[in-house]
């Protein structure tokens, strides 16, 4: 089980938990504002963009090359950007805090 906190663009903090699936799926199930996951998690739509708080980057790991290519053209992207559909939930993510990009 991993507890994950989303901070939306309205500065609302929402903590939810899950055992498996992707962070995008968790966000969509819990109606987290700013995460749509239009493509269902195949890295095609970039509607699940989050910023990982710097202290958690080690937990989530780096974006893959394909993911970086997608993020490169997102105006809100920075070095902490990830597409949350590409982050699989596991116990090691417990306590993770993510800022929703949009």
């Amino acid at each position, binding site marked *: 089980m991993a507890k994950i906190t989303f901070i939306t663009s309205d500065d609302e903090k929402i903590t939810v938990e899950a055992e498996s699936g992707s962070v995008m799926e968790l966000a969509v199930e819990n109606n987290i504002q700013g995460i749509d996951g239009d493509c269902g998690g*195949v890295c*095609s739509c970039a509607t699940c963009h989050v910023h990982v708080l710097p202290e958690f980057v080690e937990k989530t790991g780096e974006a893959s090359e394909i993911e970086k290519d997608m993020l490169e*053209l997102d105006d809100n992207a920075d070095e902490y950007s990830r597409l949350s559909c590409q982050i699989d939930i596991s116990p090691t993510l417990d306590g993770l805090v993510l800022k929703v990009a949009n």
Partner: protein
Amino acid sequence: MKHLDPSEMSCPFAAARQETGIGKMDDQNDPVTILLRLKDVRKTAHNWKTFQSEATPGRIVIPSEVNIRETRQIPFEIDPPRHGEYRSLVEAWFKRPLEEDYTSKLTTQIEMAIDEALKNSSLEAVTEMALPIQSRALTLLLNTPYEEAETWISWGTHVFRSEGEALDANKANVLYDYIDRELDKSAKNPGEDLYSVLLNSDFEGRKLNKEEAEGVMVLTFAGGRDTVINALTNSIAYFAEHPESLERIRKEPEITGKTVEELIRYFSPLTQMGRVVTEDTSVCDEDIKADTRVSLCWASANRDESVFENANEVVIDRKINPHVGFGFSHHKCLGATHARQIMKVFIKVLSKKVERIEILDHKDNIEELGEFKRKIGFHSLKVKLHSKLS
């Protein structure tokens, strides 16, 4: 039984994509430089300042519709920042397909269509299946009475084209006159349909005017017509040739979302979309002059072998699939949620009710794009559906 040759689905852009990254075509004396690689297509789609959509209405469409329409399609032919303002008016409306009630009605419609098809000894899938499904689903998107679909079905598969003619102004007028009448009706008696919602929308301190509402409606009708029909028809042909995929979806329905994305990538129902170049520039070492056109070739980008493993194969559970079948960046498809939902429900219902599909005859629809010939779908696809229960 006539099998489709899998090579007919091969990518006509492959050699040019690998060698130069560009192709050329003429279109009514307004030539087009076709961009073929995924990264170039995405970068160009994102750079709206140099590659604009807000050109003469119809010019970014290939073949150009400059000679058959004056109405600007909205938000499609508007660039940022006003593009975003227009888009925000309709974005929530176009996300309604995710609602339970919408999906349930769509499921009922598609179940009826497939039940009907199963009763027939054979049927022509383009006009007797894909077109009715597309038209009836559109009543949900517009929130108009179900019966309206019969009118739209009578228009045929492309609202701007007649059989054998590339562009048909008379046919376009049928659509414009229809939308005009419907907007007038909604102005007099507002309801809960998209026409009424648009006319009641606030934009820049005023109500959206009739011409703007018409621009949104024309886009909604035209953008989701032959694209959805081709997506459905190509999928029927695919499952006819790959019963094992239908079987797999029966056993693992959770992969349906990935299957939809993959079929959209592979078949790319919209081959390309143009942009007008606002300043002298270059792409792939090719100089491109101001006031000429480039096209973003989604179909080629979606087969880019430098990005997609086994790019020319349908992998129904492809996990990483950064396709651009619904476009990319600001102008990505507004109707994508609706289209995805149609495809998802269609595949789920098909897998539940249909054991196998037999192709009896087919006539391919081949687009001629300068040096390239691309199969986009079918003029006709005669099939027999075999019920799972029989």
